[in-house]
């Protein structure tokens, strides 16, 4: 977050918590000073920020993250990813053309990313052009620092373009880079799970089952450590597939697929539970 938008952030947090300026300023600073901070006319000292964060019940690292921008980013990300998945590239480009011009920087970068994706999808541009544009975008200043989520996402999609066009060594190289990335926050660790999953998936289709299984195990361990449900069922499913290819004991294969099935059910992910039931029925211990 840029320091200039800090005042807006404080104001928004205050309003969300239904506090008046007077209530928030009490025991912290004068109301006049708070007003100046909210209007971006004063940059507060860190001690003052700390006292504000305590009254707003938000941690010091969170107070510098613009939750509005994050929400907006997530909303457009879901919307654009939907278009892309359904290959509705013309609509996607129309949609992006009609967006307001005053969007926050991270959202603008997101849109630039999806523009290349849409143009490659329409075959306006070659996949190689798309890759070099995406690499350029991800190398832009501040991208890795300020928007690591987007940075990783773009890298992941570059790997994917390589993969889809059978440039396996290049795809693998990108993933190897991503494996050594420093995933320092919770959000990034969540993304790390997804990266590991995709990487293992590609290794499976390249018949490199030994390396693939290693990656899956890594993702599993990370999910377990963080008690994260997002990819756990998927990792068990992957594990089952690798075990199958590597001729593990029947019991191990059955365990993995049955866990996947049971976990998908527990996570309310009925589509995937049904897929396991359909595709790996012979390995399941039971049906629920």
């Amino acid at each position, binding site marked *: 977050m840029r320091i200039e938008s800090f005042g807006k952030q404080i104001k928004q947090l205050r309003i969300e918590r239904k506090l008046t300026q007077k209530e928030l300023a009490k025991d912290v600073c004068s109301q006049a000073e708070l007003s100046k901070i909210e209007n971006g006319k004063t940059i507060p000292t860190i001690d003052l920020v700390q006292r504000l964060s305590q009254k707003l019940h938000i941690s*010091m690292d969170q107070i510098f993250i613009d939750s509005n921008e994050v929400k907006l980013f997530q909303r457009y990300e879901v919307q654009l990813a939907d278009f892309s998945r359904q290959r509705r590239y013309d609509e996607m480009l129309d949609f992006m053309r009609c967006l307001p011009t005053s969007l926050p920087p991270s959202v603008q970068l997101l849109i630039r990313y999806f523009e290349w994706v849409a143009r490659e999808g329409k075959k306006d541009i070659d996949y190689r052009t798309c890759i070099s544009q995406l690499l350029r975008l991800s190398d832009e200043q501040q991208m890795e620092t300020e928007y690591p989520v987007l940075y990783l996402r773009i890298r992941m999609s570059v790997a994917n373009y390589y993969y889809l066009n059978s440039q396996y060594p290049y795809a693998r190289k990108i993933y190897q880079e991503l494996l050594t990335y420093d995933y320092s926050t919770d959000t990034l660790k969540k993304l790390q799970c997804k990266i590991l999953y995709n990487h293992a998936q590609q290794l499976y289709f390249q018949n490199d089952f030994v390396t693939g299984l290693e990656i899956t195990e890594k993702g599993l361990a990370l999910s377990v450590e963080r008690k994260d449900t997002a990819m756990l069922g998927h990792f068990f499913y992957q594990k089952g597939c690798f075990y199958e290819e590597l001729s593990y004991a029947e019991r191990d294969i059955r365990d993995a697929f049955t866990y996947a099935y049971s976990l998908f059910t527990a996570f309310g992910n009925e589509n995937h539970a049904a897929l396991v039931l359909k595709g790996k029925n012979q390995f399941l211990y039971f049906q629920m």
Partner: protein
Amino acid sequence: MNHLPVSIGYEIKRLRKEKKITQAELCEGICSQAEISKVENGKNSPTIDLLQQVAKRLKVPLSMLFQDHLRSDVFQSYDEQLADLLRTNQYVDALKLSEHVLSTTEYEQVRNLARYYQVIVQERSGQIHYLKAVQSLERLLNKEQLSFESATLYLRIQMGMANLYVEHGDFELADDLFQNLIQAKYETIELKKVRIKILYNYGQQLLLQKKYLAGLKITEQGIQESLQLEDGHFLGHFYFQMGYFKQQLNGDLSDIQRDFTMAYSLFCAFDMPIHEKRLLEEYAEYVLFPI
């Protein structure tokens, strides 16, 4: 005492070393090396402008400099150690550790954590009467600034009180507290996770009171909220509770089997052997996995 400059300095130094940058390289064009050295040692309170430039050079978002690794590491480490000692009934060691924390740590939040455990352990080991324990927790709760400085601890102390009421059969008082707690606002992800724990404890209380229908409702809510947060900490516990409630309510056998089976697979998948064992001791007949 204010720890903010200390924690920021610790964080800057940690990141600088991680990225293998020298102090001279870090401060070039930003400030003098003497100043950055003071900032790293927590002797100077830096301005936000300076921090923004430093963050840029370290290639991290500004918010990262405020991650209080030092404190949260200390807090988490003691929390885990004390919880372990409590779970395994090692009261003498738990008290020793709390005292150690109080005599060595200056972080008020960590000290409050130790005070909280002290009361719980003293009550468990019969050193103080339970009503006195409740009183002490109440006093801790009313300490100035506690609700601001650590909303998490604030909620946990209340939950601790409610649990004491439950253990001693004062269900009405517990119920009031739990009702209050689930109506509070939970704005951050961290607090939403505490709320899930509260829902679980509330479900346990309703279980003890044999209020199965009400318990089932709370449990369902816990499952829903866990899934929304993609948080697996209590998911196994919730399915276990659900299976138990349905069993008591004479629900469908296939439903009960499903719940215990999901609980079992969650305990196994998330590597929680103690819970897995406990489930199998009493409810193995419902688990569909071959055991």
